[in-house]
């Protein structure tokens, strides 16, 4: 029983991390209709900026704010300088450009910050909470992660649902021509969308890094899991991203914990789950895109 609880809580924490990354993907998809493969290395870049600040003696919170701000700037610059020229062409062009960016940014991180394996601090503890005389694998850090992810999700839902900016962003992403005719400054909205997505991406990078180890490619494994989580959730829904991440985190933790040689089966299981979900609900669990596509 204890073991089941341990495996479950490990899975939940891990799932929240996938959710954090999936949220960033959902945000950029909603605001620009592009799947951004460079998201992972953009997040890694701002995480390394934060790490450099912390190593220079700044507090975690200062580093967090700077990382989020530099994420916004990086996202906006990438959109204006790199994505803008290929926008409006075939959709595949932009996607391939983000793939190229992914490699280029990762290489730049290695050049600027070095490629060594380093620990990334967390403002909260890494010991499991003690309940009675037993310890459960839920640390203050994982509570911080869970809280932050839920807060960001709520903010995103509010932004898209209740604000004019959110409406304008959705309109620009959905149909640039129509939005433009209705007076929306589409260019600005796309830049804003990339900037915000990069902020969420940066936050996910920092949350993932906290209390564990980073190196320039540390997001690689999470990119795959984050994509799977986002697609399980429908790629369009912030709530879907959270649920997708949790499902994936739990499922992988059970596979790792209960299947023989489970650790080796984790990656393949993620893809099996993805295929099953897509076969049953091709648009993902929380998809609302079908109606709009018509």
């Amino acid at each position, binding site marked *: 029983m*204890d*073991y089941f609880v*341990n*495996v479950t809580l*490990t899975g939940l924490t*891990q799932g929240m991390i996938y959710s954090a990354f999936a949220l960033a993907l959902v945000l950029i998809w909603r605001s620009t209709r592009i799947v951004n493969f460079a998201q992972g290395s953009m997040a890694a870049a701002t995480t390394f900026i934060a790490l450099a600040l912390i190593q220079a003696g700044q507090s975690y919170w200062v580093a967090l704010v700077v990382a989020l701000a530099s994420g916004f700037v990086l996202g906006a610059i990438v959109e204006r300088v790199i994505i803008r020229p290929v926008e409006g062409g075939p959709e595949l062009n932009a996607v391939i450009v983000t793939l190229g960016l992914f490699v280029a940014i990762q290489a730049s991180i*290695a050049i600027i910050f070095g*490629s*060594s*394996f*380093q*620990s*990334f*601090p*967390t*403002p909260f*503890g*890494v*010991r*499991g909470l*003690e309940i009675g005389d*037993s*310890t459960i*694998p839920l*640390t203050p850090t994982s509570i911080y992660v869970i809280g932050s992810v839920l807060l960001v999700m709520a903010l995103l839902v509010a932004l898209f649902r209740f604000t004019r900016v959110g409406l304008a962003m959705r309109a620009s992403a959905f149909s640039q021509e129509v939005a433009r005719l209705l007076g929306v400054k589409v260019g600005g909205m796309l830049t804003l969308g990339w900037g915000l997505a990069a902020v969420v991406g940066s936050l996910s990078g920092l949350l993932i890094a906290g*209390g*564990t*180890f980073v*190196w*320039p*490619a540390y997001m690689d*494994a999470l990119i795959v899991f984050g994509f799977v989580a986002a697609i399980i959730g429908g790629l369009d829904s912030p709530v879907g991203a959270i649920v997708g991440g949790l499902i994936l985190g739990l499922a*992988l*933790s059970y596979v*790792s*914990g209960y299947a023989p*040689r*489970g*650790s*080796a089966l*984790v*990656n393949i299981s993620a893809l099996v789950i993805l295929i099953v979900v897509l076969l049953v609900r091709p648009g993902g669990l929380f998809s609302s895109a079908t109606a709009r596509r018509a």
Partner: protein
Amino acid sequence: MTTIAAATVLSTVAACGGSDDSGGGSGGGGGENEASDIGVTADTIRLGAHYPLTGVAAPGYSEIPTGVQAYFECLNQEGGIYDREIEFIFRDDAYNPTQTSQVTNELVLEDEIFAMMSGLGTPTHSAVLDFLNDEGVPDLFVSSGSLLWGDNPEEYPMSFGWQTDYMSEGKIIGEYIAENFPDAQVGLFLQDDDFGEDGEAGIRQYIDDQIVAAERYTPGNTNVGPQIAALQAAGADFVVGFNVPSYTALSQLTALQLGYDPQWFYSNVGSDPTLVGSLLNRFSEGQVSDAALLDGALTTGYLPTVDMTDNPWIQEFQRIWDECGGEGELTNYRVYGMAQAYTMAQALQAAGQNPTREGLVEAVEAVGSEWEGPVFAPFRYSEESHMGTSGMTIERIVGNGSEEVQPVRITDIGDAPIEEFDGEPATPPTNAIPDEEPYEG
């Protein structure tokens, strides 16, 4: 020019009591230096290696080539081997076997190395084992304790192991636990490849009935929560880890989350307290202080470590690092690289004045088991076995150092018995430059 350099080597030899006709330029026939094989010119010998300089296996391991380089740098300043400078070229494979194949191709076909030395990693080096042997490139002193490099010289005549193999290490650990912790319920934390398998096979020879769980992790999957939780659930109060250093840190972090506190025993590969401490200390904030997490853990040793400042080898290696090394401190990984470079220098001396690839391999087979050096116990090299050293101490980690709890014991693969090692520790020759006679065959 040649004569002057040769004279330097000769005087060095004389100073450490060598006879006049051994080593130096006068050995191996006394003729001119020739370009006797690929990668050998009259003035240079080119060696190559692959290491993970980036990625999850890089911490620690990426320091090994800097140790090798420092040793060769100092050796070159003293005249090299038979007046030839050693050129050491190493490339990054990120611990990814596909990249290992690629960089090894470059080393062999473009750089035209004479021999490979110290290629690091079991999964990585396995990928190039056939290639190196097919091409007839000597593949000396692989940086891995897998049995692959040494137990089948007929199939892989060019490859040689160096460090204690994981099976022998498992046996020595198993015997120690059986004698000193007969009531322990033992859990195994294993890398899911040859490294974990060989270690498990060795340890099970002695304490099969004490083992309550064996959990495997896949390198690259950094969530080891379910594995550590399973060891805890099985009631293991003594955990033996055959894992790389980053997974030592991950297993300690996960154990903290679970409130799990068994007696830890990390095999030699994953136990460097300085490295693991430096990975963990950032989380300190009053919770995890430096290496304290590993304090009291057990491990094994086959080489002196940097905390043994009284050890004459460590003193020599410290001097070499200060004079010829790069930035940073002398670390155990750099000591490892220097010790391998020392064995390589012995091999090249034994291969004679104008070495060939075949001659090098023959020399290691014929006289390698007689070489003395920083390694605690002798190598097992012969025509039948290309296994490296087999002896290990058991040590307890205290702070950033360790204290010996069991002296060197030696064994071999399979069901060979474990015996006490009765040899004397070797002392370093002058300037830590070996003085082996050329093997004439």
